């Protein structure tokens, strides 16, 4: 049974979380400095989220086919959900093709230390926004 019953729910939950990260003074600033344009393509349910860190303020768009991303990360929505809990071993996920990353990987790897604090923030975000049923 997938964690997210439909695309709308996924957009509401993950979209809200990403917006929170972008508004975080520390994480948001570092994302801005990266100037990375990254697109997450989720399956089951299907949704794409594009974050364009080259612009200020950083736009977050859904199912955006106009913005050309530098990096695309493809994965199931459930994998994304577990990832933000810090429960996904990134190296294993890539080699087992649970995640597929297209684009300049060094730019993505640069962000990993930046987003590590988000692993603590995600459960809190879910609690505070009434998504207790999504807690793992």
């Amino acid at each position, binding site marked *: 049974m997938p964690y997210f019953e439909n695309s709308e729910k996924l957009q509401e939950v993950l979209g809200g979380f990403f917006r929170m990260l972008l508004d975080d003074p520390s994480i948001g600033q570092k994302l801005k400095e990266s100037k990375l344009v990254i697109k997450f393509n989720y399956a089951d349910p299907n949704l794409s989220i594009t974050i364009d860190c080259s612009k200020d303020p950083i736009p977050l768009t859904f199912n955006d086919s106009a913005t050309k991303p530098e990096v695309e990360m493809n994965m199931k929505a459930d994998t994304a959900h577990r990832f933000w809990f810090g429960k996904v071993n*990134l*190296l294993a996920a890539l080699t087992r093709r649970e995640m597929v*990353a297209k684009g*300049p990987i*060094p730019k*993505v*790897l640069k962000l990993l230390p930046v987003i590590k604090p988000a692993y603590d923030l995600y459960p809190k975000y879910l609690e505070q926004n009434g998504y207790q049923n999504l807690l793992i």
Partner: protein
Amino acid sequence: MVPDFFQFYFPTKVLFQAGLSRDFSNELSLLGVSRMLVITDSHLLKSGMIEPIVEGLKLGGVEKTVLFSDVPPNSELTAVKKACEKGMEIEAEGILAVGGGSVMDTAKAADILLTLGGDLVQDYSGAHTLTSPLKPLIAVPTTAGTGSEVTQVAVILDESNGVKLSFLDRYLYPTIAILDPELTLSMPPKLTAMTGMDALTHAIEASTSLEANPYSDAFSMKAIRMIKDHLAKAVQTGSDLKARSNMLVASNLAGVAFDHAMVGVVHSMSHSVGAVAHVPHGMANSILLPWGMEYNFDVAKERYSDVGKRLGVKTQGMAVDEAARAAIEEVRALRAELKRACGLPDRLGEAGVKESDLPKIAQLSVEDGSSFYNPREVVEAEVLETLKRAY
């Protein structure tokens, strides 16, 4: 300790023998390659090393070869495309790469283009983007070394915009790795020392990485022992085939180890030192290895105690702290021996880094992907202090 999850995948057939590069026809004939693209660099071509290897390919059924030797010191996109074009001239069915890390990376990336066509950057850059096997790749290292002959990664600079592209895929593992120590006999002492310390850094960092597992540990620990026993000799007496043989195998073992376990803060700092001050990678690793071990001391001392045993420290009866400190001192002692033997710098300032570079290096170190796998969080202020001590 066994982690909750790990994986180990190693499809490359490794063959070792002095002189093997001139005739590995038993294995070559099984690949069914009659047209081979040979990739090397101009220095190796001028040395005369390549000709007998290419001649030996005929014994394995290769009827036609084409040579690409314009590989720069660091792999670049233009060179990859030109190598592929060369291969297409004869519809090459396989690739032979003879050289160091840059040649290996160029060959891996050229293999992608030669097999699949398309645009290397748009279509394949990234992690595990390939969906089918590539043409056979035979890797023959001439340094000891990067271990690239047994890794699934290639890093290529896109010169047009200065972006480093990574290609990480199980299909990039070479089909065969030929370890012929005779090819390393002509390495000058300083290059021997730098590449050897690069291999030691791979092995030690793989042993403390967050991705370390029992399989990578077996490879890294063996590599550490072999490097300790043979690196100084290989530097002091380059003609010593036994020392060269052990170093070549050790760097290969270390390559397997870090391909699976990744590396850490030493590489984070080294990559950044290289980017800012253009210090060769092996030299930077050599200077920074003991300092990186100091950085990780509190979280990795049990592991450094094990490393110490492989470095020859008599750890029996020693407390863990003491054994770990002794391991770091052994690394320093090896480095001092190499400095006496060939003048390899052991300080960042000596290697051409300016003190004013250090803050930028510290900032880049935190952002380097290797820091993600370090057993202790890589913090900019603390890295800066470490760099100052290494200066």
